């Protein structure tokens, strides 16, 4: 019996020994956290939870993949906004799995993100704003929980940061979650934080350029366009592209970069419109050069030129004949 007890103590001590090395040699100070850290929301309220990132001084990351879990029976995930986000490249649209209550987003930043700079008046560490709405919860459920339900939104352990080192080295962040309290709605009109943001946003998305490209690695070497912009307020919602011959006509289709051009002859006027969540739009236009057409004037010129040459030849021949006759 004493041998078993001794063994237990040895195992326990060994675990503390190993644990010491583990936490003091591999832990990163990079922290993924949610703001506000706690909140009370009533049924029907629409509110915003911000995902943010803190880094240690010598850490520099350029890609993040985040997965979050939310209580899908209590909350509806309405949308995600990258407005004013430090992430400037969103390779894939974020996904909301409403059945499992999981949100996924991936974003990148060229040159990387190194954390807060001394003297910066703002936090500058916003990743994404998540808009949630409190569902209609049966009164029985509220009654059973003392007129309030406590829940949380949390990052999942498979959330990952990648270092800006050319090797995509992963960095495991520390995670901080948010606690929510759901209350019955005694008000007539629920609060809508997101609507307030949309109403305040009167600023267009940032200016951008549209480039026409062609490459064997994409679209079977056909012409395509590349474009990218950001929005500093409510965030981009979608892009639209129009290809028409007539500059006064528009034929808008939703699309993303890279976008395969319908008119592979490059005869069209191409317009790309960035639309933000508040409906503000910025349009950029490319007018492509028209192909050279043989106009009637051009044909006339050729005929005239040919006539002149013909006349010159005739004149020379005639002169030669006269000279020959004179010599005879």
């Amino acid at each position: 019996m004493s041998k078993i007890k001794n063994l237990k103590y040895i195992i326990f001590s060994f675990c503390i020994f190993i644990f010491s090395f583990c936490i003091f040699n591999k832990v990163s100070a990079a922290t993924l956290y949610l703001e506000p850290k706690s909140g009370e929301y009533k049924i029907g309220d629409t509110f915003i939870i911000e995902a943010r990132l803190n880094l240690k001084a010598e850490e520099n990351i350029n890609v993040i993949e985040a997965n979050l879990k939310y209580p899908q029976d209590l909350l509806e995930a309405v949308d995600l906004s990258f407005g004013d986000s430090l992430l400037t490249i969103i390779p894939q649209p974020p996904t909301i799995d409403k059945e499992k209550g999981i949100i996924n987003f991936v974003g990148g930043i060229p040159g990387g993100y190194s954390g807060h700079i001394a003297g910066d008046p703002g936090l500058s560490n916003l990743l994404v704003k998540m808009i949630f709405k409190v569902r209609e919860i049966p009164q029985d459920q509220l009654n059973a929980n003392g007129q309030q339900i406590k829940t949380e939104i949390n990052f999942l352990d498979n959330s990952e940061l990648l270092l800006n080192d050319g090797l995509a080295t992963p960095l495991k962040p520390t995670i901080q979650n948010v606690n929510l309290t759901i209350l019955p709605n005694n008000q007539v009109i629920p609060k809508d934080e997101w609507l307030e943001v949309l109403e305040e946003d009167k600023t267009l998305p940032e200016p951008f350029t549209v480039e026409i490209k062609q490459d064997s690695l994409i679209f079977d070497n056909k012409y395509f366009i590349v474009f990218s912009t950001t929005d500093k307020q409510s965030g981009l919602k979608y892009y639209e592209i129009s290809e028409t011959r007539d500059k006064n006509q528009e034929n808008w289709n939703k699309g993303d970069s890279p976008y395969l051009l319908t008119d592979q002859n490059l005869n069209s006027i191409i317009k790309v419109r960035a639309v933000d969540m508040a409906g503000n739009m910025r349009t950029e236009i490319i007018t492509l050069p028209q192909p050279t057409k043989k106009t009637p004037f051009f044909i006339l010129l050729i005929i005239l030129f040919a006539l002149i040459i013909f006349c010159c030849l005739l004149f020379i021949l005639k002169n030669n004949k006269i000279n020959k006759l004179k010599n005879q």
Partner: protein
Amino acid sequence: MTIKNNQNEIFFRNWLFLSRTFLRDLLFSKKYKLTIFSVILFLILPLFPKISQAETFQTSVSVIITVCGNGVVELGEQCDGSDLDSQTCGKQGFNRGNLSCKADCTFDTSDCISGGGGGGGGGGLYVPETKVIIQGMAYPNTDVTILKDGKIAGIIKADNMANFKFELPGITPGICSLSLWAEDFRGRRSPSFSYTLSVQSGMTTTIANIFLPPTIDLDKDQVKKGEKIIIFGQTAPKSQVSVYVYSSNPFIKEVEADQIGAYFYNLDTTPLENGAHSTKIKSSLEGGLASDFSKTLNFQVLGQDETSEEPSSGESVKIIPANLNHDFNKKGRDIVNFVDVSILLYNWGKPKNIKTDLNNDGVVNYQDLSILLYHWTG
């Protein structure tokens, strides 16, 4: 009262007995000794130097942000709003008057009066705009490329002391991501550095004390033990250059850059063991300005009976894999920008073209995006 005092005394005696027993067991019992040892280790281990390469040498960078228009005099400002930094017309060389501050955080002496009458300078209506100023040091007489939100915003030439200053007017207030990189006099590129900051409406935000890390190159990447490797590159003139060499016993050597910022260090490989090693550089100047680390270069120390492969310069002339569409600028340098991202996105998931799988793991995903973004040029 007496009963309570007795109870307290009993409690105290019990507590003393238990503590004594516990301590005696802790110190003298075999089965507790391992536990004690582990707990002590747990408490003192943070004091030991950490063994990972990235944490052996601490870096310090001195970039700061100042905001003109926030009412606080900061570095590089004469005044800010009502904060005149205790200055008056008298201290500015006038007899009397009211000193004020212009919207660009310089003194407005238009209301100052000197003995001969009339104030000097100032005047005119200044409408504050939202602006960002970036200033720092790179390499003498070389181009510094500035990117805003991943796109080239401008290229500025550093002066012969490696100083540069760039203004970005008309910025939309909010989060702004600025990146910088430079090429030295031999076309070697510095790493890109990004600064993400909050730009306030109607204010001028200055990012100062930027010091781009030195460029680095090796004359060879494989040597026999005992031979020398030259580590060289460029930084700001007269910088103190710290050469970090990573091996089983990492060490640091100091050299000084010359008046054009060129430095070199002859690394004697005699004390290094056979095998792979790496090196990187950082610079510092008097006054505390310090750069971050340069790129890390690898080299091999071979035994006497080992043969080296065909020597290659540390400077790469190959197309970098992240330049997916093989486009180059006027100087023949790779361009990695949104076009390459587009090609990557087209091949997202199972790649249609294996060239887009930058880490060769059979799938194009955010790890390949990370590698591409590292090589970003805009």
